[in-house]
């Protein structure tokens, strides 16, 4: 069950649009910086396949300029 965090850079003047687009993806949590055009995005998916699909969806968002992964964890489904 992958959990990953990213720094997302929007295109110029597209920060709000990017926040809105990513927020609509249920596996994503968005934490926008208050004073810079940077968003922290944390993704939580159930499988590698779902993670790959999500990544594709993120990368096709038109207001997204760059998505840089910072950390990745893979946790077991059960203890």
């Amino acid at each position: 069950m992958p959990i990953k965090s990213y720094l997302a850079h929007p295109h110029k003047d597209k920060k709000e649009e990017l926040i809105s687009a990513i927020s609509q993806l249920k596996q994503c949590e968005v934490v926008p910086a208050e004073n810079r055009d940077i968003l922290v995005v944390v993704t939580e998916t159930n499988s590698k396949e779902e993670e790959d699909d999500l990544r594709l969806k993120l990368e096709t968002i038109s207001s997204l300029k760059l998505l840089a992964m910072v950390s990745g964890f893979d946790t077991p489904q059960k203890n």
Partner: protein
Amino acid sequence: MFTSTTNRRDFIKKMAKLSAITAAVSMFPGILFAEEQERGLPKDANLDWKKAPCRFCGVGCGVLVGVEKGKAVAVKGDPKSTVNKGLCCVKGYHSVMAMYGNDRLTKPLVKKNGTYVETTMDEALDLIASKMKETINDHGKDAVSIYGSGQWTIPDGYVASKLFKGCIGTNNVEANARLCMASAVTGFLTSFGLDEPMGCYEDIDHADVFVLWGNNMAEMHPVLFSRLLDQRLKRGVKIIDFATRTTRTSMAADKSILFLPQTDLAVANAICYEIIKNNWVNKSFVEKHCNFSKGLTNMGYGLEDKYKFTDKPEKISFEAYKTFLEDYTPEKVEKISGVSAKDIKYMAAYYGDPNKKVMSLWCMGPNQHSRGTWMNNLIYNIHLLTGKISTPGNSPFSLTGQPSACGTVREVGTLTHKLPHGVVMNKKHREFAAKIWDVPVENIDPKPTYHTVEMFRALDRGDIRFMWIQVTNPMVTMPKLKRYRDAAKKEGRFIVVSDIYPTPTTDIADVILPSAMWIEREGMYGNSERRTQYFEQMVEPPGEAISDTWQLVEVAKRLGYEKQFYYNKETHIEEIYAEYRKHHEGKKHNMAPLKVLKENSGMQWPYVDGKPTKWRFNSKYDPACSNGETFHFYGKPDGKAIIWQRPYEPAAEEPDAEYPYWLNTGRVVEHWHTGSMTRRIPVLHKAMPHGYVELNPDDAKRLQIQTGDRVKLTTRRGEIILPASVNQRGVPAPMQVFVPFFDENMLINDITLDSFCPISKEPDYKKCAVNIEKA
């Protein structure tokens, strides 16, 4: 790992989020994530944000504490702090919660007929003073002792030293930093003549290569490690993890190199061999600024009571040193260390490249080592041979684990041989201290007494009868613990413990004093980069709790030292700090005035002409340099640093047929040291609720052990049963196991060995022989 999946996943999500915020803060100074930082705060909160250094590790992050209605309710990183630039680690973000555990000690307790009875603070302090007088009368001044820590504030340690060394006249003053930083101290003193790093955290912004010597920075110093990762994103720097175990740091590093325990000594020498062989020596630097020396070898391991060792340094030539290194060719060392000759040459090439700036970072790996002083010397050798020292980005940097291990234990000098300025053995240093302390110089005993392990052995033997333990938990942390726990319980011993929560150490106390914690009182800490940071009292301590400083002042007055402990209750921290600064006056160690500390996120010493000194021993930055050269190692009489000839020697106890595995102990990111604070923070406790033993997957498979199975660990000291962890957080090398020590219900130190470095007297918690079997 053993908590519910939901809790674990929530925690990991939080870690992932914090990692990204960390990276962002490092890349974009001043960036704010206010929504995240203020999440969970009371709605419509009218918070008063006040600055302080973090309570936990030695990095010394600046935090802003949100106070509402007399309670600390929130923490965020201080964007103005140059240490962490607005960032906190998971412990820092939750630090205020450590003050509000349900079982906070709020009243003094006195043991009567086997049970603890509440009493008033005045009565408890009266009892302590009378017991001290009685013990001194019956057994002499060296029968009373105090054992503190690197969590003591500067004023705590200062008054402890003044009372015991200056007034009572015993050098029975020690602190738990002996267990974690003593080898760093003796390493600095033997190589440079002065303690503490020459560089600063700003080196991270300049270095091209980082070599981490047995240092799991990703878990132990996560904020600094995030600064390394950020530099990799920005500048493509290289991170080399040189360790005995695969950790999160190894996984994040560009290269992970594993060595067999204790053989870092040989590898460091092999790196020096390569530097000389390939003509990478900075000849003009070495000729102008270095001497070569050797000391005694086969020193033993301090396993016997009253063990003594004094090194006998002897100057040698460069040629003699070069000949010594012939035993440490990469090919020969490969056979000892398990590190390939290719990897040794890989590391040496970075150190030897004149166009690469290299920062070496280490903490407990080289320090908690039966040849800890030597290991510190050897890392300095590499930097001295190449002249990569005391310039931005070229920096051998010894990290610390406690908020004031440097500020209080090393600078105030709360170790048996130390004074705030200098050592007890030096007549001038004694005279200097006595004058400031307003005591007869004869009061200060010129002979050190007991280092920490020997102090507890003395308690066992009955040479020490009274011990006051403040802000530390030795009944979890002492190696070969059972001996010392039994010692403390013997008849005729009187133990006072000042703490904030019940611990295994309060369990052995005759008197328990409730202490004010961190921002419940005023004080200062000193971090790893020589930065002294002030914090004000922000909230009231619970019940009758008072600061450790004031506990000591009150007892000192009861012992008749009113003249020396003249401080006013309202202004005593300011008065104590002003007095303490006198010990360090001068260009080599001047401390910033309190006003400056209050106005800034701390200040580095030496503070000269209104400016901090970022790089010592470099005349461009350090006003104390006076030899007319670029560098001046003024801690040594001739101004030269020493390159030491130090051989590889085996550990005190190595695996054999009966105990075929290495046992290594350490920490985890969620818990700080013995967990007495972090285990009372629900999110951290749930994330890591108890101890475990990490096994190598091949060993586990052979022994048919899976994660969660009960595993019996047996050493010559005893046995313990722990749940197994296989392929989880860390992965030990084959025939090695790792156990964290935070869990007071699974006391791994009951079975560790109390061997220590003969020079620093710091125990080796990283190596002893153990057998493992499925329980």
